[in-house]
């Protein structure tokens, strides 16, 4: 098994938004999609996904509706709302800036005399 990385706090919401932005998904589907788009590099406890989903719905970033899955089972499907789409854009930008800055900081070499 490949070594998996622990998630940074707060990043799960971003991943969920990203996964759902690619299409309407149910909870388990979101989990699979995150695995797929992250190259299975992240360790996500399955149960931990759901409080995040409820939170996002409450914040109005996702909307949920019941439907039937590809396995012919009842499942709750999530989609992005307009607010969710905007949040995803903003958060992605933030993340990129942060990652660049931290990357630059970590890559900095001592100045040559």
């Amino acid at each position, binding site marked *: 098994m490949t070594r998996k990385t622990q998630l940074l706090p707060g990043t799960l919401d971003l991943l969920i938004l990203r996964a759902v932005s690619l299409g309407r998904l149910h*909870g388990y589907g979101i989990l699979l999609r995150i695995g797929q788009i992250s190259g299975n590099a992240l360790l996500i*406890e*399955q*149960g931990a996904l*759901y*409080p*995040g989903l*409820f939170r996002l719905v*409450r914040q109005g970033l996702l909307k949920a509706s019941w439907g039937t*899955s590809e396995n012919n089972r009842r499942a709750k499907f999530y989609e992005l709302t307009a607010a969710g789409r905007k949040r995803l854009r903003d958060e992605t930008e933030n993340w990129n800036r942060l990652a660049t800055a931290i990357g630059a900081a970590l890559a900095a070499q001592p100045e040559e005399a």
Partner: protein
Amino acid sequence: MKILDSLRFRIATLLRRPRMNAEIEDELRSHIEHRADDLEQSGLARVEAERRARIEFGGYERVKEECREAAGGAFVESVLQDLRFALRTLRKSPGFALVGIISMGLGMGLTTTVYSSKWQLISRELPAAANAKRLAMPEKPVSYYYIERYRGQKDLFAGVAAFQTGVPFNLTLQGGVNAKPERVFGQLVSADYFSVLGVQPQRGRLLSPELDKPGGAPVVVISDRFWRNRLGSSPEAVGQTLRLNGQPATIVGITPKNFNGALSMNPAELFVPVTVPATLAPELANDVLHQRNARAFLAMMCLAPGVTIESAEAGLDAITRHLDELDPSAPPSTDKSRRVTLLLAGTGVPLPANLKHVLLGFFAVLIGLIMTIACMNLANMLLARGARRRKELAIRLSVGASRFRLVRQMISEGILLSMLGAITGFALAYGLGVLRSHFIPPTAVPEESNFTPDWQAAIFVLALAIVCGIGFSVAPALRATRADVTPALKDAAALPLPGYRRLGLRNLLMTAQITGSLMLLLITGFLVLGISRLSAVQTSFDPHSMYLLSLDPVRDGYTPDRSHALFERLPEELRTVTGVRRVALAAQAPFSIEDGDDPIQITAEDSRIQKAAFAETVGAGYFAALDEPMLAGREFTELDQRSTADESKILPAILSQNAARGLFGNGNAVGKRVRDAGRSYEVVGVVHDLRKGIGVSQSLIYLPLTERNFALPPADGITIMVLADAGADAPGSIRREIASIDPRLNIFDIRTLSEELERSRSSERFAVNTYGGIGLFGLVLAAVGLTGVTAYAVARRSKEIGIRMALGARKGQVLGLVLREGASLVSAGTVLGFLGAFALAKMLSAMTSVFVDALDVGTDDPRLLLGAPLLLAGVALLACYLPARRAAQIDPLRALREE
């Protein structure tokens, strides 16, 4: 808005809760099944796949909980959970719950009573009056002429109306001429009265200057109460004609519900415009509307926007001064002080702005003291209980409950307790209110006496309950959860209990409680003694044997002359009735005081010394009827009673001892001249100081009844005093005698002097009972608190006591040991309470004259000064003694073996 939204959201989630739970379950199960499907596809058996899926999923219940929390509503739910748990805990210790609820209930009940009978009386706005916040009225009545001048001050007042309150009308609802009239009370108002108050009609129209002009057909506006009680809410009421004092008047409108006129302490049933003829309202006789010195009207003012009561008062004072100077008949005055005092008139009882604040402050202090004592008590009990629950709390802490959660839990318990207390208390106050309105005898001019608490009081008490619930449980909760977990778990008994500390929280609470109780006991004691001493009246005869009855022939249709003639012969004729010993007439009942009875300024003509005195108008033989000997001179005779009220004529007057001494020193007052604002009098006699209303050393001046009084009797008519032999049916024979003179005469308000005394002092008596009750309440609570705390201390030390006794300590020594601790707290509290009570009494006296007399008389009573602390100390020591005795009976063997 945000708070509201989130609250709505929480409530909505709460209501959706069962569905929500099901939905979460469905979703999580769906996840597990999808996972199991995948695992099955990779080759596992279905059962195994599902098991694996569940394991992978992690803590199912925890996730569910977290989802619920994330979805909102968790807070409300956990509060409910807390309350449910608290209810269970309380049910498990019913003794504790009962004592707590009773303490809180007593406190809340008293507080509600104080709030609804006192606080609301002076703070509740006139119902249905849109301008209530801007209303003001001068303290003293002025002439209609002045009010018209005031009305011109557009920069100060948006409107100024004139009115008289407590005006009696002999009412006949349609029907025959022979129908017996009923006496009802109303107000005589200027046509702009309702627009100044900002009152809109419920039906029909109210009065207006455009429609109600002098000379028009007489109209009347009736109150909602009149409409309901006398006309059975008839939809055809508007347009109907009533007979008032024998004259027809058409109902044009009905006031809104609950509106009983300005000064709602004396509810008005009718509102008659001043434009009606004087035959309908004798108050308007003698062209009173155009006489500039007939101070017959109260002014009701609506302040112009942005005008403060202070600036309005200053402006009004200047105008009044100016008007006084223009008045040729008024005596020139160099008086520099304010001539006008403006009262806030938007409430049932108009008060000067500063007095209102002082009174509200006093009631706030009273409520505060009561609630502090009750809360101290509960805090103490919770403290003791927290110590007993140490083990339970330690267990909960060790299995992961956060301290915050535990504290919240204990505070919920406190709030629950205090809410239950509040409900008990509210019920108590409600009962008291109902009881009170049943037992208060009706007064001559009706008084509003509905003090049963309403929804506002309910909200008040509920809010108070929440504040108190949090207040008394925070400290004990913090203290109890500070436990060190490990030793607590090992052995509850071996816990390092907080040792005896001189300044420990518990002792501080206890001392504070005794201090508060003593302060309450003393202050209320001062008031009780003071008020009852001030209002006591002693007569040399049995007050049950004197009957008072009232007649008002002018309102039965008599002309002033006929009325005078009637009163001329009436005493003679009544004296012939068997069983009647003495008869006298007066314009007011003896020893009583009417609202608006203000002292007048009396000046001695030769020395110019002034003195304020209450005036009473009495007839021939008044003092003989009361069995009061004259100290000097004579009393009024039939001859005086026959005088015309001509301004130039010098009338006789009688002074009370106090007034005579104030005006003429120790010299002889008889034969001297005095004058009031209008005329001169010759002093013909001096009498003992008889009490008027409540008070210690009022000065009184007695003026003779004259034709003027017979022409226009006061609101409660002319009072006929009849001293009868015991056992004679005097009222019956008098009634027959008067009926034989004229059957149309309406005799009203027949009562004995003792009933009159009861009635005129009922509010004082109620005050005495309330304050007495409050004082006793403090005592009871202090006792309950002390017993509880001492009992706890004894229980805590039972092992120690056991050892002492095993080593040979005698019962007396053990008793002393326990009592000593209590005694030191009691004495500290007593000293502090004494100091506090006196400081408070001084402060109250300094702030307002309302309490001065009562506190002055009350504070030097040795019975109270020694009695109250002794009583409290006695009760407190008894409260310590009972548990102490139990401690002394501890069987050393059992105490040592226990735990």
